[in-house]
């Protein structure tokens, strides 16, 4: 899976040595929210088959679970799968072993952000981050500004492509450009700070 630079670029090494794996990965992810059941996955693939997006993923949810178990940390954290997951909970409801796959995906997203290993040019972690800041500052999100920032940061072209729709929405009163924060911003920040502190 790791590329090697050979004279023929198409040749790849498809072997994994134990030293390249992270055997503690499963524990970390398992410890995160709801992940306890992970070990009982029977690789049945129901999650992948149910997932409305799996056919765009570089590894299906089932494979992600197998790779987490086996310690393929790098591949997992760099996969687009975890960012494509739309949190529809379809897999979670369908898994015969009651594995909370959606929550595993969340745990993996968090781990990826922590490790700084988000796939390049993938706007989702950025969106999440922006969102995070906006809420921290104002207590609420402003969809318009959020999207604007994300487009500007990732793919300004997209902004142009969607401009017509945006204008129509604006005239229908469905876009608001003004910040619409909460009153007790301080108390919210205090809460988040305390939680931060508690966590560390």
């Amino acid at each position, binding site marked *: 899976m790791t590329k090697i630079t050979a004279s023929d670029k198409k040749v790849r090494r498809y072997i994994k040595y134990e030293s390249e794996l992270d055997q503690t990965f499963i524990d970390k992810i398992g410890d*995160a*929210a*709801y992940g306890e059941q992970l070990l009982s996955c029977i690789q049945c693939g129901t999650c992948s088959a149910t997932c*409305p*997006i799996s056919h*765009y993923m570089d590894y299906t949810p089932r494979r992600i679970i197998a790779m987490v178990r086996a310690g393929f940390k790098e591949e997992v954290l760099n996969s687009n799968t975890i960012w*494509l997951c*739309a*949190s*529809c*909970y*379809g897999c*979670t*409801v369908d898994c015969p072993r009651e594995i909370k796959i959606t929550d595993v*995906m*969340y*745990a993996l*997203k*968090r781990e990826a*952000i922590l490790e700084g290993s988000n796939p390049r040019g*993938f*706007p*989702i972690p950025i*969106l*999440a*981050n922006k*969102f*995070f800041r906006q*809420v921290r500052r104002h*207590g*609420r*999100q*402003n*969809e*318009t500004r959020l*999207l604007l920032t*994300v487009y500007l940061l990732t793919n300004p072209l*997209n902004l142009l492509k969607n401009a017509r*729709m945006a204008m*129509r*929405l604006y005239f*229908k*009163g*469905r*876009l*608001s450009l003004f910040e*619409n924060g*909460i*009153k*007790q911003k301080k*108390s*919210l920040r*205090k*809460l*988040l700070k*305390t*939680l*931060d502190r*508690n*966590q560390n």
Partner: protein
Amino acid sequence: MKYLYYPGCSLKSSGRAYEESLLAVFDALDIQLEEIDDWNCCGATSYMGVDEIKAFGLAARNIGLANRQKKTQDDEETHIIAPCSACYLVLLKTQKYLATHTDVRNSIQGGLSEIDLDLNSNIKIRHPLDVLVNDIGYQKIAERVQKPLKNVKVASYYGCQIIRPYQEFDKEYYPMTMDHLVTKLGGEAVDWPLKTRCCGGTLMGTMQDVGLQINYRLLKEAHRRNADVMITTCPLCQFNLECYQDKIMKSHNDSVEMPVIYFTQLMGMAFGLSDISLGLNRLLTPVSDIFQ
């Protein structure tokens, strides 16, 4: 019974029509809604992926606020109505998670105490659909209908997040509450297999190709089943399915045009409420002409 109302960010912007129609319908049924004072963002989906504890914290603050508001009013059992699917799920999930994970609950409660809020109380998180059919009842809704939706074929689209995995008011595989509601309004419920299939959520914004394809599938199937209109329970689903329709049709070179409205808008129409009060004017694909 009094309900506290948690609108969430979307209902104040892109989903404004949802709020307008919701309030109009509840008003028409004589149910008081009281907005939670100074609510904050629910900490939705994307937040969970960044920082779980804080996501729970954000949701918990809203529950704490509701708790405070409840206490000052002396209500016994308080229900929070959360119309947006994402908000509904996050609030419900937070409540259920904290109930079983004491360590996290203690930590969150610790944070809340610092700002004089308190989690402990029997607050219930409800979706308006649940409240309408279970508390108010089909009977009362049917009685309020003034303009039955004769010959209108409606595809009920529940989306994913209100139906699984935490709710308890409907079946997770074949939910039927909205379909029954449609018949009570005089319309015809279309049986279609995609009613709980995901709309892709924020993928439309972040990975548009994927989003367009997913939503195309939904519109296409509703078309194939001869639906006249699709109703949703979530501002994001509505946004994806309606506002991107042009693009969907262009990218798939297929005419799958279809009005997509909130179920509350449909109810309001059957109740004979005005277009403006239901926010119908905000639609990009107009709907009124199909109701003769």
